Structure formats: structure tokens, C-alpha cells
């Protein structure tokens, strides 16, 4: 099947056109030495040179979200339900590892109890993903977790830069297909399926040095107590950068904040790397040392979540590798686990 193409230079106008339908626009722009997905950024500033430092998580699961309002009057309290601030949104030129994080976390937000805040935002979000031809950063390892630099999981529309001047468009979801009309305004030509095949091939080749991580779960399950945790995680300073930049980390805190007689209840990002995360009021802390907390993060991603929801809680985006201030690489740790499993250790 042929795919429509457009000029690469038309991408900002395309972003504008998609946003023009009453959507808020999120796209990657440069700030200093790094890229960030930003809401309301100027489409002309669209920068596709590498993977942004933040993930798209904050647009579906904000760092601080109101979930309830309350007001006291005498003995009584009046509580007010809060509607999620779920504006129609287009995330333009998300990376495949970011888009793929959504189907990974959806089961979590929906087992038994459905979190309307995530779900309504998800429903309102249109994901236009910019396929990576090859891994854009040395830290990337999406191929190791069953994805690829051009994976389309979670995306509504895929964009492929088939050459320096041309971008091919491939709608993926029904939501994406409905947008044909918008895209067709920018149509310049067509390319065949083969043009896109290069992406799969080159993408996989660029990550050939990365290991598959299929044996990690088994190894972890048998090595809860292992010298590896102390050995690797002694250097962890517990900064939580890995959890906050991660597209799939979803842990949160609930806090009340009042001014005078009323206030609101907020759902804030939280992370397993902080001692307070699991500290009981009694003073007991099940994860009282940094290696235990680091182990929890690896377990949650590679053993617990796959067991529970059938998916690795990681899309191999590499942010926790690239931005760890002490270069404690998650990939190195799980690759070590894989290696040991392969050797039967």
C-alpha cells in the first residue's frame, strides 16, 4: 500500500493545522543543549535532532493534579468532584518509545478501578509519532524490550522521514485515520511500503549491540538477595531522576493542601527511590536502604509488572541511562542479569 508523503519543511504547518482543530499542541523544542516536549511551543521551533529529555508522561499524568476540592463550614465539609483538565491535545513528533509507554501503563490505570484522570486525558490525546530511523541516542535500547526505533505501539499516526526532505505519513489507529483530510492538504507525493522497510532494518541494526532482555525476569525472581544490588547501587544517590524522566514510572503521592477553610487534594509524582515512599508511621521501612530501593525499581519494571500485566514496564527510551547523575545505567544492570541468566548463574 502506498503512503502519502509531505515536505519535511511543512511539519510545523502540519502541527499548526492539527492544533488548529481546537487542540493544545505539544512538540519537542530546544532549550539550551537539550530538547524538551513543551506545551504551547512555537511549531517553527520544532526540533527533531534527538530524543527529548522529558517524556510525554506529563501531558497524560501531570506532575501535580487536583483530584478533589473541599471546603469546611463548621463541623461539616463539602467536597467537590474535580473534572480532569483533559483538553483535546496533539502530541506532535513524539518518539516511538514515548508513544509505546501508553499501552504499557494503561492496564495499571484500569485494573478494577479506573483512573478517570489518566483515561480522559488519554482519550483526548492524539499521538503523532516521529519514527526514529536509527537509535537517536547512545542510551537507547528499545529493541531489547520488544520495541524498535520505529515501533508504532500507542501511536495514532506515524511519520517517517524517508529522506532529508520528505516525510511519509502512515495512520495507525482509527483516530489517526480520521485525520486523513488534514494530512492530505499537505500531500506532495507517495512512497511504497518498501520505503518504510528501511526503518525497521536500519533501526534494528543500530541496536544490534543491545541484548535481548527476555531472561531477566527469571533471573530476578531467583535473585532477590544478591550481591549485585549492593555492588551496583552503592553509587545511587536516590535523586529519583530516573523515575521522573521515565515514561512508564507512574507512582504517585496524594497530598492535601489548604488555604484557610478550603483546599484541594492533589495527586503528585512520587518515586520508589525515596526513603519516605515506603516509610511507615511506626518508623519501620521495608526498603530502608538505597540498594533495596534500586532493586525495587528494577523488579517493578522487569519482574513484577510483567507478571501482573504481561508487559515490561520499560520502553527502552534510555533516559534513566543518559541522565543519571552518577551513570548508574539501568541497561547495564538488566543486561548483567540477562548475561548471568544465559550463563546459568
Amino acid at each position, binding site marked *: 500500500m502506498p503512503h502519502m508523503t509531505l515536505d519535511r519543511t511543512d511539519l510545523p504547518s502540519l502541527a499548526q493545522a492539527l492544533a488548529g482543530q481546537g487542540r493544545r499542541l505539544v512538540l519537542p523544542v530546544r532549550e539550551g543543549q537539550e530538547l524538551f516536549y513543551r506545551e504551547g511551543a512555537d511549531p517553527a521551533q520544532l526540533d527533531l535532532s534527538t530524543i527529548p529529555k*522529558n517524556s510525554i508522561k506529563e501531558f497524560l499524568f501531570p506532575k501535580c493534579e487536583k483530584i478533589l476540592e473541599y471546603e469546611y463550614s463548621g463541623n461539616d465539609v463539602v467536597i467537590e468532584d474535580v473534572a480532569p483538565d483533559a483538553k483535546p491535545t496533539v502530541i506532535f513528533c513524539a518518539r516511538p518509545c514515548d508513544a509505546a509507554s501508553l499501552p504499557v501503563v494503561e492496564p495499571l490505570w484500569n485494573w478494577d478501578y479506573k483512573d478517570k484522570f489518566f483515561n480522559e486525558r488519554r482519550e483526548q490525546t492524539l499521538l503523532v509519532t516521529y519514527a526514529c530511523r536509527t537509535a537517536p541516542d547512545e542510551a537507547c535500547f528499545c529493541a531489547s524490550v520488544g520495541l524498535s526505533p520505529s515501533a508504532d505501539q500507542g501511536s495514532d499516526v506515524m511519520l517517517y522521514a524517508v529522506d532529508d526532505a520528505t516525510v511519509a505519513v502512515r495512520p495507525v489507529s482509527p483516530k489517526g485515520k480520521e485525520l486523513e483530510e488534514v494530512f492530505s492538504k499537505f500531500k506532495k507525493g507517495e512512497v511504497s511500503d518498501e520505503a518504510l522497510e528501511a526503518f525497521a532494518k536500519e533501526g534494528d541494526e543500530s541496536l544490534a549491540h543491545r541484548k535481548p532482555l527476555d531472561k531477566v525476569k527469571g533471573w530476578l525472581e531467583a535473585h532477590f538477595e544478591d550481591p549485585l544490588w549492593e555492588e551496583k547501587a552503592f*553509587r545511587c544517590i536516590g535523586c529519583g531522576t530516573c*523515575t*521522573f524522566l521515565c515514561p512508564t514510572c507512574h507512582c504517585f*503521592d496524594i497530598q492535601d493542601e489548604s488555604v484557610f477553610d478550603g483546599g484541594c487534594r492533589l495527586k503528585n*509524582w512520587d518515586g520508589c527511590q*525515596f526513603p519516605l515512599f515506603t516509610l511507615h508511621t511506626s518508623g519501620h521501612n521495608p526498603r530502608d536502604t*538505597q540498594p533495596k530501593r534500586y532493586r525495587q525499581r528494577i523488579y517493578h519494571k522487569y519482574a513484577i509488572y510483567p507478571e501482573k500485566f504481561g508487559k515490561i514496564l520499560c520502553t527502552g527510551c534510555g533516559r534513566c541511562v543518559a541522565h543519571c547523575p*552518577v551513570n548508574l*545505567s539501568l541497561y547495564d544492570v538488566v543486561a548483567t542479569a540477562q548475561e548471568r541468566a544465559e550463563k546459568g548463574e
Partner: protein
Amino acid sequence: MSDRTDKIREVARKWLADGTVEAVVGWEQGTYGEKCSPALARTPEDADRLLFNERCTNNLMTYLKRDPVRSMAKVGIVAKGCDIKSLIGLLQESQVEQEKVMVLAVTCEGVKKDDGTVPVKCQACDVNTPTFFDEIAGDKVASNPDPEARAKELEKLDAMTQQERNRFWREELDKCIRCYACRQACPLCICDRCIAEKNQPQWVETSPHPRGNFSWNLIRAYHLAGRCVECEACETACPVNIPLMLLNRSMARTVKDAFDYEAGRDPEVQPPLRTFNLDDDNSFIL
């Protein structure tokens, strides 16, 4: 550079072999780009992993405040001149006992950040050859500090009106996600339980909204006033790129101007907010 690596390994091996120290904290080759990573050498063999190069950016003194290093009877630590300033701060505040630390100093021409640029602290460095140590690796490196390097950073801020500064910081601090990476990376943030984690009463709101972020960033900078040695670890660790060093440098400038004090110089001198002069500036008080 390799001479320094050799010397570090030699000294670390010796200390570990003869039981001078339980472990040596140093740097080893990292796995992402040219990055180096903190390393813990517990045996003489481990010492051969240690190295020094211009990518050894981490300030290892932050490990003195956390386990397993904190609970060791005696530990060796590899340190650049700038890192030693942090140690001096810790000694001044009795956070570390000098007898428990062996400093393996390393001379340094300056390090490079992940993006290849030279940190301001290196442009302004006057401790390329450390003076406070037990052993030193590397030949003397002459210091050639740019006296304006630090001040230049503040020019932009100084040029703003009050309203512009307010807007500037509101925007910057709105980015804060309250991960506290700045605190965790800082060797001088030494509280076992940070004020931001105390909830009875909740002085600093933990939510990453403008009000909470303002309080947190303000109190972090305040608690480091007169203590911060401008190692830049906080700004480097910040995952959302808040220019924290602007706040820290501004505080350092105030402390220098008002109390003629520079942090991290002399372990015998009282930190400025632990003491006072009868004739301190009184002009702003009615």
C-alpha cells in the same frame, strides 16, 4: 592524565592492602558516552578500576554522608581541589571526622560537562593543585582563574528589574518536579531528614505547584548560603534544568560582600551564619 590514574591506583592499592582504609571512593569508567561513574574500591584489585580524566565530574564527597561509606571506620576518597572544598565544609560543621577520611587529592586542569563545555567553577578555579590532602596524584597545575567568570553568570540577573526577576524565577521554578535531585547530589545537604520531608507541621508543601516550588527552592538556597562551595552538583543533577547555580552564586556573592567569607577555604574558620560581628551591616533595619 594517565600518570594521575597510575598514582591513584598505586595509593589506593597501598591503603587497601595495609588496611589504612576500608574502602576508597573514586571514579571509574562509565558506560554512557565518556561519562565516569563513582566507584567503591574495597580490595587492592578493585583499585585498578579507579581512574582520573576530564570527565570525572562527580563530587564524591556526597558519599561521605550516606551508607555504606558513612558507617566505615576509615575511608579513602579521591578528590579534586573543588571537591575538597566540600570536605572542608563538612569538617567545619563537624559532619565528618577528619581522622576517618584519607584524602587522595588529584591535580586537575578542569573537567568537561556532558555537553563538552567547561563548567564555570573550572573557569574560576584557583585550586587546580589542592593543598589539603594526605596523598596527591599529579604534578602541580598552575591556576589561572578568570576572576570575572562567576560574576559574569550573575550579570543577566542583575540587569533585570525586580518584576523581570520575579517572572524569570516563576518560570524557571515552575519546571521543578520536586525530585530533590539537587539535594541528593549536594555534599553539603546533610540533614538526615530534610525540612521538605517534615510534615508536622508541613512547612514546605511537597506538591510541585508554583507555591510549593517557590518555598522549596528558596529554602534550599537559603540553607546553603555561606556553605555552598559552588561545585555545581545540584545543577548538573537537575532533570529539568533549573539554573540553580544562579541562586547559589548570588548567595555566595552576598556572603562575600557582607561577611567577607568564602566557603570551603579553611576548616578552622566558623561558617558565617554561625557567628556574627558587632558591626555587621545594620543599614536596612529600621
